């Protein structure tokens, strides 16, 4: 339960941050990406503030034997810079530039954005599904998104690795 509450709190903070920063407005995101037009540098300020605050959290985590509510930290398993990483990033960027939505702001807009947001999110889920099909599907692959199974734990009960 603490695990669920902590995740909910993180989601609430994240969603609030997207609203406060104005990143739920695709016009503002496109205004940042339009470097040759009437450039709006706001998104750079969002990242410039988010990155050091997040980095503090990662630093703090690095001094802890385990997370507060889970048995172990789950850093991304992959290390190589390969064609999949760069190709996926390239495709994502094209989609981002076409509409001004990336996954976070699109989901954060679901509650008030109406049909355009619903349509975008449906297409995004379809794209994720297509990738899953292309990857050969149903077998869960532990290690791709961190360890596949982390037993639910109480806050403070994490064990040393």
């Amino acid at each position, binding site marked *: 339960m603490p695990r669920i509450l902590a995740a909910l709190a993180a989601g609430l903070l*994240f969603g609030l941050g997207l609203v406060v920063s104005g990143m739920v407005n695709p016009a503002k995101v496109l205004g940042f990406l339009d470097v040759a037009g009437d450039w709006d540098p706001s998104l750079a300020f969002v990242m410039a503030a988010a990155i050091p605050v997040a980095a503090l959290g990662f630093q703090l985590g690095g001094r802890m034997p385990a997370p507060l509510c889970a048995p172990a930290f789950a850093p991304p398993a992959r290390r190589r810079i390969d064609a999949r990483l760069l190709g996926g990033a390239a495709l994502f960027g094209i989609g981002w530039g076409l509409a001004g939505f990336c996954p976070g702001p699109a989901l954060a807009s679901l509650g008030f954005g109406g049909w355009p947001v619903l349509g975008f999110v449906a297409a995004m889920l379809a794209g994720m599904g297509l990738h899953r099909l292309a990857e050969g599907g149903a077998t869960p692959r532990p290690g791709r998104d961190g360890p596949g199974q982390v037993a639910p734990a109480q806050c403070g009960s994490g064990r040393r690795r």
Partner: protein
Amino acid sequence: MTQFTPWSAAAGGALIGAAAALLWVALGRIAGISGILGGLAGAPAGERGWRLAFLAGLVGAPLVAAAAFGAPEALVAAGPARLALAGLLVGFGTRLGTGCTSGHGVCGIARLSPRSIAATGVFMATAAATVFVARHVLGS
């Protein structure tokens, strides 16, 4: 054209960074939206709860804010076909490249991950190129 809003951008960014810090310190997980959402499919039962809770917060906070203070400004210029194509590319691309603006752009750069720095450079470049072509070459 939108106005440059440095203060609210930085304040919102700090909240996003705090969310990422909390998820790491409490759960040991990267606050990457595409990974949290995409990982729902095929996740073992014990892995679904926290993902759903995070996503509920992500959708819920703006919903509550909109009810309390009015819907935030959000102008969607793209038509249905363009939104659909954009969504497909974003969904497929973020799964293939294992991350988006949050997972690579915020968390990955904060962890000084070379993969994430490379991915962020690439998606920023192709996004800017797409906007350039759409606005200044095709004029749409």
